[in-house]
């Protein structure tokens, strides 16, 4: 883990107010894995007080990217950063996706900004794995395709692709996936992850999901980010330390 005051290379605005912040940070770019995250201090002052957690979106050499939208005050400040500014980054943090293991096909399921961690994951798979991306959003505006491959799209209002949620789309398209050895990598709203969990269990597919939770520290000292263990319901995991990526069977969403 490092605390780095890292220079912003540039701030790219994709369509629909989605931002890609490119940051020069060899220490972290060299170490971080897909699904791990960074805890970013958006202002030097005391407001906003806490850091803001962001998944690593991609890595190119000495640079990492994060992807975000303007959600509140912190992301607003981040959206105004440009080349030359510096940001205070804490990372790499947490447990990312497990790229090893015995699977040939990676099924990527992303809901809205849940797309954020996948460009890096897909880059790491390269040609080694067959990849199917199922991308969902409320409307076409919420569908983020950046860095995706072999894409199927679902929107709740049908304004783009399949009309319905991404899990329904996945269910209907599962037959397309020939391989016996497929694994799901997911990130998105809790409702989606809940539906995905039962889907994965029903079809006994191995499934890892990146989860979210309000955080203070991001590295295990505040106990602020619990997620209940499925096997021992009297126990909580910490999203920031034991996650944010969990085998979806291990947690109660």
């Amino acid at each position, binding site marked *: 883990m490092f*605390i780095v005051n890292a220079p912003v290379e540039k701030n790219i605005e994709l369509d629909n107010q989605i931002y890609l912040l490119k940051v020069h940070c060899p220490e972290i770019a060299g170490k971080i894995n897909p699904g791990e995250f960074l805890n970013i*201090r958006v202002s030097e002052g005391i407001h906003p*007080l806490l850091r803001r957690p962001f998944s690593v979106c991609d890595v190119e050499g000495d640079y990492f990217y994060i992807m975000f939208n303007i959600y509140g005050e912190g992301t607003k400040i981040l959206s105004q950063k440009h080349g030359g500014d510096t940001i205070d980054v804490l990372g790499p943090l947490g447990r990312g996706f497990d790229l090893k293991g015995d699977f040939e096909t990676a099924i990527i399921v992303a809901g809205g900004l849940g797309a954020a961690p996948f460009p890096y994951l897909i880059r790491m798979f390269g040609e080694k794995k067959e990849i199917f991306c199922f991308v969902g959003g409320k409307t076409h505006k919420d569908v983020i395709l950046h860095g995706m491959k072999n894409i199927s799209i679902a929107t709740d209002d049908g304004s783009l692709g399949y009309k319905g949620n991404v899990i329904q789309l996945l269910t209907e398209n599962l037959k397309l996936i020939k391989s016996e050895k497929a694994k799901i990598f997911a990130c998105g709203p809790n409702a989606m992850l809940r539906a995905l969990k039962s889907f994965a269990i029903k079809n006994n597919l191995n499934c890892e999901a990146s989860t979210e939770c309000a955080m203070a*520290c991001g*590295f*295990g000292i505040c106990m*602020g980010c619990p997620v209940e263990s499925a096997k021992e319901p009297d126990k909580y995991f910490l999203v920031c330390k034991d996650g944010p990526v969990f085998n979806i069977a291990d947690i109660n969403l």
Partner: protein
Amino acid sequence: MKTDLSVQVGPLKLKNPILLASGTVGYGNEISGFIDLNKIGGIVTKSLSLKPRKGNPPQRIVETPAGMLNAIGLQNVGVEEFLKQKIPFLKKFDTKIICNIAASTIEEYVECTKILTEEEKIDAFEINVSCPNVKEGGLQFGNNVKAVGKITGKVKAAASKPVIIKLSPNVSYISEFAKVVKEEGGDAVSAINTLVGTSFNIFTRKPKLHNINGGLSGPAIKPVALAKVLEIHRNVDIPVIGVGGIMDWKDVIEFMIAGASAVQLGTVNFIDPSASCKILKDIEDYCCKAGVEKISSMTGSYII
């Protein structure tokens, strides 16, 4: 000129006045990746209870203006696990270990103390009285002078080490509590624990915290904490450990001027895990420049 940074908190000698506050550094492991714990005056552990506690469901954390609310629900590994799993790690460091104890009955406070006091790596106890008293229908021990007196006396009797009582700020006259702690033989008080607060999501109309209420910490509460430390120092002859909203070396000096013999850093650890060592260095630099020979001379040095 080199400043003598060591301070005395009653019977407890610290190499410097910087302590890490309970619940804001767990049991020291994670933060040790960012700072050399040997440099710090001491670590106060996350509150320990007799049995492990699961803690509250999420959401446990809410950011507020210049502060944060937490409702962790005293999640902790329990006394036994602490001794087995956490003490061995802490043994590696030359720093004071202050064991913070939380309980729901006076008996549980005593029970925890008896078990922990056997461990020689533990240098002192900090008693968190900001806990609901199950026998009193969940009313906080910390808001009741009699209860705090009773806890102090009984824990002190069971302890072979210094006992610090961590006072609740959610009272009218905190010095009354410091007074009873002194009368019952307590060695020092920590002031303050968090202020009770809440926050709502105006669209769902639900409290943001699953627990509804949480504890307010961070810079927002610093003026309140300073007033409480000053009130104790002016009214009761007992060492005070100042806690609440410290972000930099200036805040540390301010607390010492107000009457603190030592201080604890809490929320700042989340924002900058290396803050404690930075602050320590800044304090050393300042003391040199200002020609302060012993930092302990700062304590209660206000001119009123």
